[in-house]
């Protein structure tokens, strides 16, 4: 957006967009590093992720203040209003993703003595799906692309299923190996955090729809194969068809 009569407003919106982009890149790196550290048992990299969260929090505060200033001083409407509101929302999603990455990183040193237990779960596949979802959700948001957003939302089920499979697998391990209860509990939490990352990616994708079409589709099952365009449950096909 570079065509407001008030050039300062353009500059402020551009600055906000840049901050969101930088925070997105930082959070994506935090998530990738946390998953790498988990899969490789890399405690040093995990420590780096934990330390890096301060930067994420700093962006969170800056972006929130920036949005508050724009709302109070510029009273944006229409597309501008949606841009600022969605920036606030995505900022929150990114900050939570950062927390999930830290939560994963904090458990890595506790798994060191049971290295092979990680490879017995689906966390590698979950990590791959979650990072791809995050990347696509952020592309959908910055480009206000509804079709990419939809491709993110439909993948949320895959992660949910993998999380459930991990739960079944890890509770089986706990039953059979009481000495692994602690490690398995940490992996349950890691699995839950990966699932949460995918949820946040889904929220960002839904925000992309709000920016593009001014539709609030969250909580409505938008994008799922069994739902209509607005997210309502599709009417069942008439009998006999």
């Amino acid at each position: 957006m570079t065509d407001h009569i008030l050039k300062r407003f353009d500059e402020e919106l551009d600055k906000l967009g840049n901050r969101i982009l930088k925070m997105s890149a930082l959070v994506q790196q935090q998530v990738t590093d946390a998953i790498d550290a988990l899969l490789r048992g890399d405690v040093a990299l995990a420590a780096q992720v934990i330390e890096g969260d301060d930067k994420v929090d700093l962006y969170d505060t800056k972006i929130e203040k920036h949005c508050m200033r724009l709302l109070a001083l510029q009273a944006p409407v229409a597309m501008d209003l949606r841009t600022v509101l969605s920036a606030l929302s995505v900022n929150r999603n990114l900050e939570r993703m950062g927390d999930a990455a830290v939560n994963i990183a904090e458990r890595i040193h506790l798994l060191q003595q049971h290295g092979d237990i990680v490879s017995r779960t689906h966390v590698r596949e979950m990590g791959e799906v979650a990072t791809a979802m995050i990347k696509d959700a952020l592309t959908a948001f910055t480009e206000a692309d509804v079709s990419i957003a939809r491709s993110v939302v439909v993948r949320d089920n895959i992660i949910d299923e993998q999380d459930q499979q991990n739960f079944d697998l890890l509770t089986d391990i706990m039953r059979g190996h009481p000495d692994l209860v602690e490690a398995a509990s940490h992996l349950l939490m890691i699995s839950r955090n990966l699932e949460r990352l995918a949820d946040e990616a889904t929220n960002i994708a839904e925000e992309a729809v709000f920016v593009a079409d001014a539709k609030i589709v969250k909580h409505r099952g938008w994008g799922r194969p069994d739902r209509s365009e607005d997210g309502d449950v599709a009417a069942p096909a008439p009998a006999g068809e």
Partner: protein
Amino acid sequence: MKNSKISIENLNLFYGKKQALRDISLEIPEKKVTALIGPSGCGKSTFLRSLNRMNDLINGVRITGSVRIDDEDIYARGVDVVHLRRRIGMVFQKSNPFPKSIFENVAYGPRINGLGGRQEIAELVEQSLRQAALWDEVKDRLKESALGLSGGQQQRLCIARSLAVGPDILLMDEPASALDPIATAKIEELIFELKSRYTILIVTHNLQQAARVSDYTAFFYLGELVEFGKTRGIFTNPANERTEKYVTGKFG
């Protein structure tokens, strides 16, 4: 439209050869506030004045199309314009109280219209001043000159004066543009109070004011009605690209 108070169809207005309004069709809902917005010269004030035939007073004005209030064509032959303007109160940008007492300003309309005796007129004055949210501020100095009131009070006095003759429509042409923020807020609050009884149209250059006080918004540009809809829609997701650009400050 259901509950339409004013029905405008294919309204065109010419100042001599210059066309100021182009084929406007619009239904103004009853007992709602409708804001008219658009850049200077877009025709919004001309449109407002065509609803009580104020443009008749300007030489060389020609109008085609129809304006119906309660299904009655106000441009039909034989329409009593004085009676019409009694039904349609008007408030202007600059308050224009008569150089008389506060009481006389409000009593003047009912008196010349023969709307009652001394007692009834006094009751009407109080009722109108109360409706205009001015009674408590002036009840002890009704005999003092209206010119001694503040700008915001004078504007509310003019609203009281309009209400005293019993209109059902109020036209407001930038009623708060010369007032400070507190006086503006009082006028906006008053508009909100009045809409339960009156159909209100307000021309304003202040988009935030339009967003705050109106239920519906009409966006005019170059004499055309570009978009009309619920205010919440116009200011969150306008349907027309020109409306989007205007309300977000990209032209005008």
